[in-house]
């Protein structure tokens, strides 16, 4: 058997190797391949370090309906609020708008609570709810002013969306909606065109880096049809012509407690912790038609990154990507000369494969400094 090292079809040298020479060549190939690959992986991970683009997270959570029989909309919003807080976004970065006070409604048999599961398993009102816009302050005008930042100077900071061009914003809307509109407070509506224009204003004023828009209403998909600004991802609980259904009533309270889509969204989010690597594709699968009866929809064509590479915590959590390192990292040339130690190859293989499995977030979170290849190989 002839083994030729070719370069561009020109035989550089051809050898009639013996068995041990074959092994050596195989190892060298693997070496070079892994080294280049590791270099790429490093640059990928390093690239990813700066590629998610955002440095802070904001959430705007809006419940647009009032009256006791719309208890479930307030419960929806509060359960998303709870998840978002649990995953790290502080109250100073959350704008919570609730159109009615269910916890202190005269008809609430358990005052100061809002339950999302029947038999009163989960009180989403909790002890430290901070509602920024309450009651009649939740209007279309206020919502649009919050988004676009055109608030009078006297508005307190807790009522402002002080986002910048590195903010990832989560916007969650729930209430009663229809084809192309969302009803606020039983007296006015916001249309999908208005919403799209508000987002465009936000883009032009560089008020967001990426925006995730979730809406849980009837015919919710119509609300994101008109978006045209970049870096928007949208999810809705039902398509045009479908109704979003409520999940379960509680017989002691006498109302429906949650909507189906948000119920399953809450279940999904309960499994997310700040270091999860669950990505958006799994979020799109929340509440399939068998559970939700309506067909949830999503829109990612305006989003520049691949949704499979977007973490849930990019929007729902406030994950700090902090890494202190004493060494300089020269990222422009990932390739470094390696001592050619053949008896370390197995070790290399083993370590490299393991390293490949360890997720980036863990590395970032737990590993105090980025390990270079030569640190891993004690043999060098």
């Amino acid at each position, binding site marked *: 058997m002839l083994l030729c090292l070719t370069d561009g079809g020109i035989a550089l040298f051809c050898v009639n190797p013996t068995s041990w020479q074959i092994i050596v060549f195989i190892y060298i190939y693997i070496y070079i391949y892994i080294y280049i690959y590791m270099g790429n992986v490093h640059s990928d991970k390093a690239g990813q370090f700066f590629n998610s683009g955002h440095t802070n997270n904001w959430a705007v959570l809006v419940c647009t309906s009032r009256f006791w*029989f719309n208890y479930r909309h307030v419960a929806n919003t509060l359960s998303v609020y709870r998840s978002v807080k649990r995953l790290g976004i502080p109250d100073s970065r959350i704008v919570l708008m609730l159109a009615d006070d269910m916890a202190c409604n*005269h008809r*609430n048999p358990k005052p100061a609570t809002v339950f999302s599961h029947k038999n009163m398993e989960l009180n989403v009102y909790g002890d430290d709810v901070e509602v920024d816009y309450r009651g009649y302050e939740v209007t279309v005008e206020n919502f649009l002013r919050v988004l676009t930042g055109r608030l009078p100077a006297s508005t307190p900071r807790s009522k402002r969306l002080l986002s910048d061009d590195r903010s990832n914003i989560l916007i969650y809307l729930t209430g009663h909606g229809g084809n192309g509109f969302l009803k606020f407070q039983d007296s006015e509506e916001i249309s999908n065109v208005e919403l799209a224009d508000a987002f465009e204003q936000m883009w032009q004023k560089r008020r967001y880096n990426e925006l995730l828009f979730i809406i849980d209403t009837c015919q919710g998909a119509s609300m994101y049809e008109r978006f045209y600004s970049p870096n928007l991802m949208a999810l809705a609980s039902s398509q045009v012509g479908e109704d979003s259904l409520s999940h379960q*009533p509680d*017989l002691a309270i*006498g109302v429906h407690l949650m909507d189906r889509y948000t119920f399953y969204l809450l279940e999904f989010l309960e499994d997310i912790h700040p270091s999860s690597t669950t990505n958006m594709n799994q979020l799109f699968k929340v509440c399939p038609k068998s559970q939700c009866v309506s067909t949830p929809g999503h829109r990612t064509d305006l989003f520049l990154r691949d949704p499979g590479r977007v973490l849930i915590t990019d929007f729902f959590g406030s994950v700090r990507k902090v890494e202190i390192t004493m060494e300089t990292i020269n990222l422009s040339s990932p390739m470094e000369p390696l001592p050619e130690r053949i008896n370390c190859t197995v070790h290399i293989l083993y370590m490299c494969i393991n390293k490949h499995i360890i997720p980036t977030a863990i590395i970032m979170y737990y590993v105090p400094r980025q390990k270079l290849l030569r640190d891993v190989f004690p043999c060098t």
Partner: protein
Amino acid sequence: MGLLSDPNRRRALIGMLTRLNAPICMICYMAGVAWFMGLAFEPFTLRTYMSENAMGSTMVEERFPAGERALATGREFAAHKKKTGGMPVDWLVRTMQARGLEVYTQRFSRKLPFPDEDKERYMVKGTNVYGILRAPRAPRTEALVLSAPCSPGNENNQAVGILLGLAQYFRSQIYWAKDIIFLVNEHDLIGMQAWLEGYHHTNTTGMDWSPLQGRGGSIQAALSLELSSDVVTSLDLVLEGLNGQLPNLDLANLFYAFCQKIGVLCTTQGKLPRNDWDTTSGYSHAVQTMMLMVLKQASSRPWGDHGLFLRYHIEAASIKGVNSFRPYKTDATTVGRLLEGMYRKLNNLLERLHQSYFFYLMPSLTRFVSIGYYMPAFGLLALILLLRALDLWVQLSSPPTRTTEDGVEVVPASPGVLSILTPLVISHLTGVALYTLPVLSQELAVEHFPVSETEAVVLTAIAIYTAGLALPHNTHRLLAGEGTEQGWKVLKLVAVLYLAVLLGCTALINFSLGFILALTLVPLAAFITPHVPKTLSAVVMVILSPGLTLLFAVFFFQELQETPVTLQEGWMLYLSVISQGILDHALYGSLLYPLAALLVYPCWLLFWNILFWK
């Protein structure tokens, strides 16, 4: 050119109208009756459904536990009632206060225009007792009412017992957003009228009552409970109120929804529900139920204590417990739970019930016919009157010329205003006499005849009614000269249009009354002329007159209730119906008696005049 502006086409249209008038009228009449009968046919009706979003579905958990204790309270109430011989005011006040309500009383008194022989009362004095359960956290802007009447004898004790039991249970709950007023009224409707007038600061019927010390805000809904047995086999819902007004259909839907949920048999008009709408007996059952509702609505009287609330735009219904010979019995706890569920759902209301229909007919508790579906039946009957009026107009505008002996063509003189006005005025004066004289002249009648006051009033009314039949002969003595062909036509035109407007307005407010009057008066109005055979048509006219319509309605009503009466009993019932009608008008402001006496009867007299036109 257009259909009506082209003279040729207009002439053709008019020709067709005049030639085919009688056949078209016949067809319209039969179509109207057929449409009405078809309303009870199940595929033409709609299933009832909850329209109010705030009331949602029946997803509350009813937890009322104390049915037995409520019955014991009812027995205590009965004992105290027997001891005091009337309303045990002190005991009620103490009991309600013990349950944590704010208790107030109201005294009232009323002298009836003449003694009521059905309920055996003349000078009525009584006390209403009511307790207000204040909503724990809500402002006192809205209220709900639960009432039970304090009836003489052994009736409705259990109703008061359940009322007090529910009061105790409701008091320990914190989810009430409206005040709940628990009312025990004495002398049923008179007490209720006094309480409502006191609550709303109105005084429309001349009753004497003490002002209410405690108030609860504007009343959103009210239920009146009548229960005279410890166990019930079914619960009957009574909807018809004063002047044929009905509560919002959502209240009936709410009742039915809870009956379904809890598993209690619920009926309306006392008729059990049936599933076999495609058989003749099933259809006739539905027709019977609907006819009962029509007759009750046409009588314009409140058929339960709830009937008086409707005038104040408070949706109210009466729930009657019925204990018949069925094997499956429902106990007091279940009845209490049903009421608890209904009140919890009414508690969720944010506005008065207004989403569902206010005008409807119910062939059964699960099916209804709305105004849009039943009005064409009346419209077809009213069309007959309009066709007749058009026909007369055409005849009047092209009078047949008469040639005199000289060969000169003379157009007959148009009738003088006096010859039209006189019958009108005299008929209406007779109507006024029918309205005022019976009550005013009762002393006179009692002096001269061996009758009681009630009988005097009723018999005077009938006498005046019959005396009106002799009028045409007297009217013509007043008129100078003889009436002309034109004369009666003009009078008939006026009368037909008058009847059309009258029936139309009546049907809008009280469809049943308008329809029943139309059924008998419209054929009369269409076919009466001076040229029909006099005796036969006189008999027919008398049979179709409002007074005899009422007599037939009484017999028919008894048949539908499955308690047919003999002629003698029927006649006595008829007399008592007339007296009740007059009393209803005096006590509660029912409009049937003034409508019949002041408007319908004179209209009928006009046609009587036309029949005997000379």
